[in-house]
């Protein structure tokens, strides 16, 4: 049994220590926001935040996560009460197929937590590892800028 701290809650997980975090999130904890894209750490659809840093959960085994704080998109808000990052993506209608969007939001969240005044250049550079095949990049950038604004207004 492995203890896993996700979105502030401690779960006891019965899985092999080599299991990728993504599988545990989706299959054991039923937290389905993080997506399986490439399974190789190349597309970013599975991005979650671990101790403040964006991490590809598909290539991060449980054995590397002892004592660490994991945040998934579910940890940023709810359907009824979306957090600023989620609010901004809804307002800007930044998704087309939407498969990459949870990863985009998590990486952007990590950036804005570290640097609330990130410039456009900072945002573009930081989001570079996350791929979107639909091509909604301009809306995604607008949504991240709006999220930064909402976070500042919210205090």
């Amino acid at each position, binding site marked *: 049994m492995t203890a896993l701290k996700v979105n502030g809650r401690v779960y006891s997980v019965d899985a092999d*220590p*080599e*299991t*990728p975090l993504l599988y545990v999130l989706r299959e054991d904890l039923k937290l389905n926001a993080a997506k399986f894209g490439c*399974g*190789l*750490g*190349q597309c970013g659809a599975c991005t979650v935040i*671990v*101790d403040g*840093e*964006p*991490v*590809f959960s*598909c*290539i*991060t*085994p449980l*054995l*590397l996560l002892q004592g660490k704080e994991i945040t998934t998109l579910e940890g940023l808000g709810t359907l009824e009460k979306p957090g600023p990052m989620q609010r901004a993506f809804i307002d800007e209608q930044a998704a087309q197929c939407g498969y990459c969007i949870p990863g985009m939001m998590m990486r952007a969240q990590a950036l804005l937590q570290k640097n609330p005044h990130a410039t456009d250049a900072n945002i573009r550079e930081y989001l*570079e*590892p996350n791929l979107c095949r639909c091509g909604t990049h301009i809306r995604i950038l607008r949504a991240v800028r709006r999220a930064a604004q909402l976070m500042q207004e919210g205090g």
Partner: protein
Amino acid sequence: MREGVDREGRHLYPAFPYDHFTLLTDADIDALYAFFMTRPPVRAQTSRNDVPFPLSFRPLLAGWKLLFFRPGRYHADAQRDAVWNRGAYLAEGIAHCGACHTPRNAFGAEKPNQHFAGGSAEGWHAYSLNSMSQAPLAWDVSAMELYLRNGWHASHGVAHGPMAAVTDNMAGVTASDVRAVAEYVVASMSGTKGARPNSLAGKTDAEGTRRSSRASMASLATAPPAAAISPTHPTAPVPPAAADPPTRSGAPTPGSSLQPATTPSASAAVAAASDDKRSDGAAIYAAACGGCHESHQPLPFGGVDLSLSTDVAGEDPTNLVHVVLDGLPATREAPQPMMPGFATTFSDPQLVSLMAYLRDQFAHKPLWPDTESAIRRNPQ
């Protein structure tokens, strides 16, 4: 270009590699000049020289040149064919491979008696390109040519760090010239250790008298990379690169230093590991690296078979640390294999145990003694 002197007559620091450019022909220098003069002018502020005193006193460079700089054009070696000579001219002159791949003494001069023995560049290690090369699979000319033009080779891996910029440039160089450089470098790898080609300019009797002072300077240099290399490194048992790149399932010739065809599965490796560090490393490898590196897919779709990797088998841990922590970027112009970095997920002890496992499992060598300092040097 030839004398290391600027228009005002001031000596230049050898950071500008005039010690290599001095070999260029008149025609090539003319051609370079003609090309530069077609570039649109830009206004650019030359950054301030922040070399500390007393090195900031330029006239000292006259002494440096007297000791280490041998001006003169390239002289063809009549014992070698035209392709080798073309390769030597390019590699030693304009491409200045030795500026990174030859170790330097305490005064920043390349050690002529350790030509291509491995050096450093911008915080990366530049592997040895002479008979001390630790490449698990001996390079042949076609593999080297492909690597230089492509930036990667399925049986050797991906150019990274400052070498990535070199292969990006080489992609635009005439095929015959890339072939010549490949011929020259591969000949160097199978040649005598530390021998500098006779044909290079400035090979004079004065060298004998200089060598004694160089030897004492060399001893001042801290930990030359060559010290970590076993002089008895066997190159003979390594099978020559086949036209068909070997895969994990391809059986290497008996007695080769490659992995056995049947690599134990990761879980078997865990069970077999006697110490915890190694078994941590095996588990991390299986879970974080195996998805690509055990995928049985050749580059650029899968990860390179690590039993072929010079980063794992090489003389210095620096590049392996860089690649594991920072990955290989996907941002270069030509399509390239890429790799995600693990800086945010691996702790230092986890990285050490992973590297110990890789080194043992794929190179059958002990962990580098300076692994932990290489990790501390990484900017992440």
